């Protein structure tokens, strides 16, 4: 599999009143064609900001301060805003956490689907009527693909007329309209009921296989990652702390933070076992000293951990940012 997205030493900063916040600090990652990468971390770990940076959608007062983002052979940081716009929605698509707020309440679902095609699809026929029916046909097809019953009538409705799960499906349908090479799904299930969560994730996995696209699944749920992702990347306080093949990482985490995350999910297989929450809080991202960021919460911390820790090899295709990773093996 060839590399589709390659991010190197990305740094995204926010100028706040309290000081400069490095929400993303030296993140490097790869996504291969067709694979599913899970990105895990608590809120504030920089997982969403990393991919908003990839999309070129970081808002003022934030900005991408350093790093390169190569997508399909082009450095996205060097593109003009118009070139970037052409890539968004066509080659890289994104879905957001809550479809209720991500869909425009004042526009019909049909319009919100059609506009993506109008913006990106040069193959649409020129004639007005032909164009309209082509768009319509495609919209119906997409809604059918994500499992919305009677799509023809549904196109004329507004987002508030759909249930939460249906809205999520619609958002996914919109994101997939142009058959993107990469889908960034930001917490696609957080806002949903448990049963619908499973359906939506199945849907994403299913479509990924059919369309052969790569997926980045941003979540705070390692269980979701275990089930759907080829590889996983764990983020903490703006940095990647561990990455590798999902099965290996979950089987034997090589970073205390990953281990803590795994211990904090209730697993049916381990029923009766005590859930251990990770003690303490994510550190304030303003003016962090160059040392292991997990140090203050780490049960295994030692005095020598008070140095800047690089990503260290931790087995086949694996890396972890911990001086004691051997002790965790």
């Amino acid at each position, binding site marked *: 599999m060839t590399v589709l997205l390659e991010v190197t030493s990305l740094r995204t900063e926010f100028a706040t009143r309290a000081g400069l916040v490095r929400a993303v600090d030296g993140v490097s990652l790869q996504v291969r064609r067709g694979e599913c990468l899970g990105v895990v971390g608590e809120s504030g770990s920089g997982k969403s900001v990393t991919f908003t940076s990839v*999309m070129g*959608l970081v808002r003022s007062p934030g900005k991408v301060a350093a790093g390169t983002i190569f997508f399909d052979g082009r450095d996205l940081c060097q593109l003009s805003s118009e070139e970037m*716009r052409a890539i968004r929605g066509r080659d890289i698509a994104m879905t957001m956490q809550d479809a209720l707020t*991500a*869909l*425009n*309440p*004042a526009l019909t679902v049909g319009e919100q689907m059609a506009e993506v095609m109008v*913006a990106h699809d040069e193959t649409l026929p020129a004639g007005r009527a032909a164009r309209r029916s082509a768009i319509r046909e495609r919209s119906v097809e997409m809604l059918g693909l994500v499992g919305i019953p009677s799509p023809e009538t549904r196109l004329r409705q507004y987002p508030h007329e759909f249930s939460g799960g249906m809205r999520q499906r619609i958002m996914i349908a919109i*994101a997939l309209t142009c058959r993107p090479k990469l889908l960034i799904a930001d917490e696609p299930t957080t806002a949903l009921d448990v049963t619908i969560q499973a359906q939506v994730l199945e849907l994403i996995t299913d479509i990924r296989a059919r369309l052969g696209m790569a997926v980045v699944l941003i979540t705070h749920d390692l269980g979701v990652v275990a089930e759907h992702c080829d590889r996983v990347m764990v983020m903490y306080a703006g940095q990647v702390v561990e990455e590798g093949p999902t099965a290996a990482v979950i089987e034997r985490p090589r970073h205390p933070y990953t281990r803590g995350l795994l211990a904090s999910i209730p697993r049916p297989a381990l029923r009766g076992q005590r859930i251990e929450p990770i003690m303490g809080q994510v550190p304030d991202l303003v003016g962090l000293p160059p040392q292991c960021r997990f140090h203050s919460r780490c049960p295994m911390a030692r005095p020598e951990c008070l140095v800047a820790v690089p990503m260290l090899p931790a087995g086949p295709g694996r890396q972890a940012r911990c001086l004691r990773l051997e002790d965790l093996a």
Partner: protein
Amino acid sequence: MSLGKLLERIIQLIPVLLGVSLIVFVMMALTPGDPVQIMVGEQSITPEQEAELRRNLGLDRPMVERFFIFLANAVQFDFGNSFYHGRPVADVIAERLPATIELSLVALVVALATAIPLGVVAAIRKNSVLDRVATVGSLLGVSLPGFWFGILLIMLFAVHMQILPVSGRIGYDNEVAAVTGFLLIDTLLAGDIGAFGDALRHLLLPAITLGLPMTAILMRVTRSSMLEVMRQDYVTFAEAKGLPRRRVLYRHALKNALIPTVSVAAIETGSLLGGNMIVETVFGWPGLGRLVVESIFLRNYPLIQAAVLLYAVTYVVLNFLADILYTVLNPRVKL
């Protein structure tokens, strides 16, 4: 919105309208001075004539009964005779009404046409020079006393530069046959473009004066709701879809941002009613506002009563429409 809900809302209006009418009635009933005396003025009449007049006016009946008679008459637009004009009050008001409506509508258009683009641009270029100028301008707009601003405009454009007329609705040599009472329409109906331009020139300064506070308020509302909307997820999602910036701003953001603007505009249209009295006085505009002010000095109470009631009812109805408009524009809000 369902018809039933709409009906329910309309029914809720009734107590307010009744209360408003009661206040107008009491206001005038408590006015010192005997209406008959005021009516008769300097003429001398016999006690019998006076009693007759009193009976005709219903002044010999108890207050409560008089209120209901007043209400019943008001519903039929019967407000008695204007002492001064010697004609029914309703006729006098109807004659003056088009001038006031025309002025208010043009002021509304001027306000919307300047406030919305300014507010949008100020929001898109937040903290730019233009944003600051607009913000200071809106502060000035709500702080300027309308009557003084009108006089300044007259001094500048009519007296000093002499490019616009001082007062009135149209020049004497341009008068056209009254069909609708709206001069902009009547001049066009008469096919007289010169007269239309003249009417427009007469309208300009009063409309700006009347619309200024509204422009200031609407600009602020548009700016802040646009800023609010641009922070919403659906705007980010629209950008993530790779839509052109214009479409993100105008189709996704503005459509939602205008919801509060439109409903504030409807409410503020009500406040134009009060501003009319001032502006019509300053610009010698022959509308209802000036008629009311004149009537106060002539102690023409039936006319004042009718006009105040008319203003209040219009105001209540406008607020009601603002409410309805808000729900209609906002598919999420269900009544």
